[in-house]
């Protein structure tokens, strides 16, 4: 069996407990029930043969009458799976007696359990479960499991959904697609617990939604790009078809498995460091949780590279390498940190702060602005939010303007709905830009994408899910930097660029 940190997890809903939990929910049908019964059959495990999935997450206890029946029903599946080298993890939820659930899991030979809270002397690994962003970062577990995640994709409704706005969708900057992503949380997790692996618990859209292979691949890429692992979860229709070995379902599953294998093969990318000239400072908790986490979410969405600075570490955090800082927590930092940030602005940085900083200095620039009191401070810019509760969407947009696109790490062409993760190798030898394209059908081609970098890169290559080897990309000098020409992004590409030839 693989070590816990090497587990590639998949949700395996099957049996009486899943039926009991699901049958009370809208959209549950006789077919749903049939699928949940069918997936108890050990023969279905055959779909995992040759895939990187090595860990199955099964429903174990929820404090319901069906718990005991579930644990009994799972025995054949567990036996077959374990003999095939699979690890099983029991999901303990709801009002379940945790100690009893852990004991039964241990007795049944489960490799671990996922649950909220702690159990002393559990006798098997307990993977802590919590709603993001409240994971127990200091837990001894190498894996933390977050719930409350989103299905990555273009949201069905934009932030502003007035009728007049809908008419402009997919037509330009007034209709920026609203992409749901878990990237921001994974970025935060990497800061709070750099050595741990965050697992994300979420399901595909249910009901009548048809989930295409590319949607699954995007979900995997959204986690993989930001160093997390999605506990792969298939929709009812796909699971039903897979059990019947339908060709199209098998092809979809193979592409999902290929995506999982891709990120497993490139796990070394997780040692890369995020790059970015913008620093987001917050304690991301209490009164600041919403503004702090939403600012991260919107920064990811705006594709402006950024780094996270925990407020508790601000005093010692090096600020060299930053050109702009956001500090929109409700209260000002302690005096020493406050002075540090103001000095950052005086020395030429751009500092965007919450309303509580009002009166902290600087001279008005005289530039009218609906949301910011724009001031000059020393050589830099000092922007104080006018609203007590600033809109994180605007914070992300305004910091980009304050920073100026002159400082862009990259510029994208022929992409209309995408997220990017920009990192650098620890030795600085190369940079990696992972792009997930969320445009299912764009009026612009998703082929012939260009990414411009300000550096004079001499080598570029691209990995895509499903291909083992990278392909070399064409570079063209443009505007003092380099255009990197990408043949297609469907739905993901990882572009590595370097100043020297790549080995």
């Amino acid at each position, binding site marked *: 069996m693989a070590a816990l940190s090497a587990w590639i997890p998949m949700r395996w809903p099957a049996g009486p407990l899943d039926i009991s939990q699901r049958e009370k929910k809208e959209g549950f049908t006789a077919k749903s029930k049939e699928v949940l019964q069918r997936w108890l059959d050990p023969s279905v495990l055959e779909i995992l043969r040759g895939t990187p999935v090595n860990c199955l997450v099964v429903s174990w206890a929820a404090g319901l009458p069906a718990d005991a029946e579930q644990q009994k029903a799972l025995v054949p599946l567990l036996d077959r799976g374990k003999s095939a080298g699979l690890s099983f993890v029991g999901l303990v939820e709801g009002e379940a007696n945790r100690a009893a659930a852990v004991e039964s899991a241990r007795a049944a030979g489960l490799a671990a359990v996922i649950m909220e809270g702690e159990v002393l002397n559990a006798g098997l690994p307990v993977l802590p479960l919590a709603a993001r962003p409240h994971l127990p970062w200091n837990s001894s577990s190498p894996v933390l499991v977050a719930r409350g995640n989103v299905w990555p994709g273009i949201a069905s409704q934009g932030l502003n959904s007035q009728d007049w706005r809908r008419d402009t969708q997919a037509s330009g900057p007034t209709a920026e697609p609203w992409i749901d992503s878990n990237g921001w949380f994974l970025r935060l997790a990497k800061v709070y617990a750099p050595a741990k692996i965050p697992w994300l618990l979420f399901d595909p859209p249910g009901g009548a939604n048809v989930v295409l292979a590319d949607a699954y691949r995007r979900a995997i890429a959204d986690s993989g790009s930001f160093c997390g692992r999605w506990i792969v979860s298939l929709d009812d229709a796909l699971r039903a078809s897979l059990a019947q070995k339908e060709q199209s379902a098998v092809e979809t599953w193979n592409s999902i498995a290929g995506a999982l294998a891709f990120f497993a093969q490139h796990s070394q990318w997780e040692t890369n460091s995020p790059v970015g000239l913008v620093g987001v400072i917050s304690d991301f908790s209490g009164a600041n949780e919403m503004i702090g986490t939403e600012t991260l979410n919107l920064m990811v969405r705006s594709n402006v590279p950024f780094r996270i600075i925990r407020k508790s570490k601000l005093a010692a955090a090096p600020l060299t390498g930053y050109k702009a800082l956001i500090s929109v927590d409700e209260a000002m930092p302690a005096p020493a940190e406050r002075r540090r940030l103001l000095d950052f602005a005086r020395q030429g940085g751009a500092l965007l702060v919450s309303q509580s900083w009002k009166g902290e200095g600087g001279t008005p620039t005289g530039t009218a602005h*609906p949301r910011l009191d724009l001031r000059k401070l020393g050589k830099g810019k000092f922007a104080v939010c006018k609203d007590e509760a600033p809109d994180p969407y605007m914070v992300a947009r305004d910091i980009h303007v304050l920073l100026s696109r002159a400082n862009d790490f990259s510029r994208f062409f022929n992409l209309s709905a995408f997220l990017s993760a920009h990192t650098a190798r620890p030795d600085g030898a190369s940079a990696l830009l992972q792009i997930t394209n969320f445009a299912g059908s764009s009026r612009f081609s998703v082929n012939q994408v260009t990414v411009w970098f300000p550096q004079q890169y001499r080598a570029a290559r691209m990995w895509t899910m499903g291909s083992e080897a990278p392909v070399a990309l064409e570079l063209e000098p443009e505007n003092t930097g380099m255009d990197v020409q990408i043949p297609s992004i469907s739905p993901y590409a990882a572009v590595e660029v370097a100043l020297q030839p790549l080995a």
Partner: protein
Amino acid sequence: MQSGITRRKAVGSLGAAAAGMFLGRPARGSVPAPTAPVAIGKCTSYQPSELLPVLEDMFDKLGGLGRLVKGKTVAIKLNFNGGSTVRLGYHPLGESHWPHPHLICAVMSLMTKAGVRRVRLVECAPIPWTTPFEEYFLEANWNVRDFISSAPIVEFENTNYLGSAKKLSRLTVPNGGLLFPAYDLNHSYVDCDVFVSIAKCKDHGTTGVSTVMKNQFGLTPLLAYGNFAGKWEDNDLVAGIDRIRILHQGAAQPAFGAPAELDPKSPRDDGYRVPRAIADLVAARPVHLAITDGVTSMSGGQTPNPSLTFVKPNWIVAGTNVVNTSAVTLAAMNYDPMGQKGTMPFNRCDNKLRLAEQLGVGTCDLSRIEVVGRSIKEVAFDFKTLREKRPAGGFGGRRGGPPDGPPGGPPMGGRN
């Protein structure tokens, strides 16, 4: 000595006649529409070492830039049409649908050499008013420093908004106008001594071709003429990114106090309306220098999409009368500048050149236009045949095929 006539009044009262200021010709009544020499230059790349001498020679043949710009404030209307992050294949914007930044900077440098006082770069950019216009250049991957260093004073104004003015400036169409009696525009279109239009030459579905005349359509601020004029998104971004509802379809009247159209019962067909709006605008806001970038471009449309074709005509056309210049440009594209509706490229629209000619702006009769420098025949690039070959009968069509060159010539897919 004070003349008592402000710059604003001068523009408003002279109207189309101001187009002839550089020419010293009348433009009204039964007098034939004005004509002025149009220069054609052969240019095979955007290297400044090639652009500068070609442009300088062309301007010399037109009488020299000094007469036009010395000591003056010049507004240059850019041709930012079709999106700042959209490319035709891998081609940078300046190679396909925007005029090339090197060409604009070369023009600015030559103006500087000729003694220009200040250059203001103007365009209606669909970005929030709180975002400096320069950021739009950067988004398109243009180097702002190149522009700033090309003239003594360089200003950037997003003319979708009011800028430093308290209200939009009203420009009346001489002779009453064809679609609107007047247009409300950003102050920069009035607060300049010299107005320059630099545009790419492209095909255009609605009005046949898009060059220095069609560029004028973009003078109209979304604030007043945009699809959702009068509404705002996110407080500082005007809603809607084009003018379809008001100017193309006539489904609504302008907002922000701008004048209503002359005849609400006139056709709602964009092939009728848009050419008239353009003719109105070239009459209301006269162009003193028009420059068409035909070094590289694309055939089949004005906004990049995979069905369009990258082309390399290798020429620049410039003139002091925008209609004359447009006429010569069309001829260099192998189109008939006097063509009637129903003939290529005016398949489904009225001919905006003829409409502007009716307004007294300039002639589109090639027999009355002196061409200096290279001849039309020498440089002609056959946009017409490329367009006729398109499966859809003009627009759209072929996807994924190799880019075309001139008929019989090599493919033009490579970047330069």
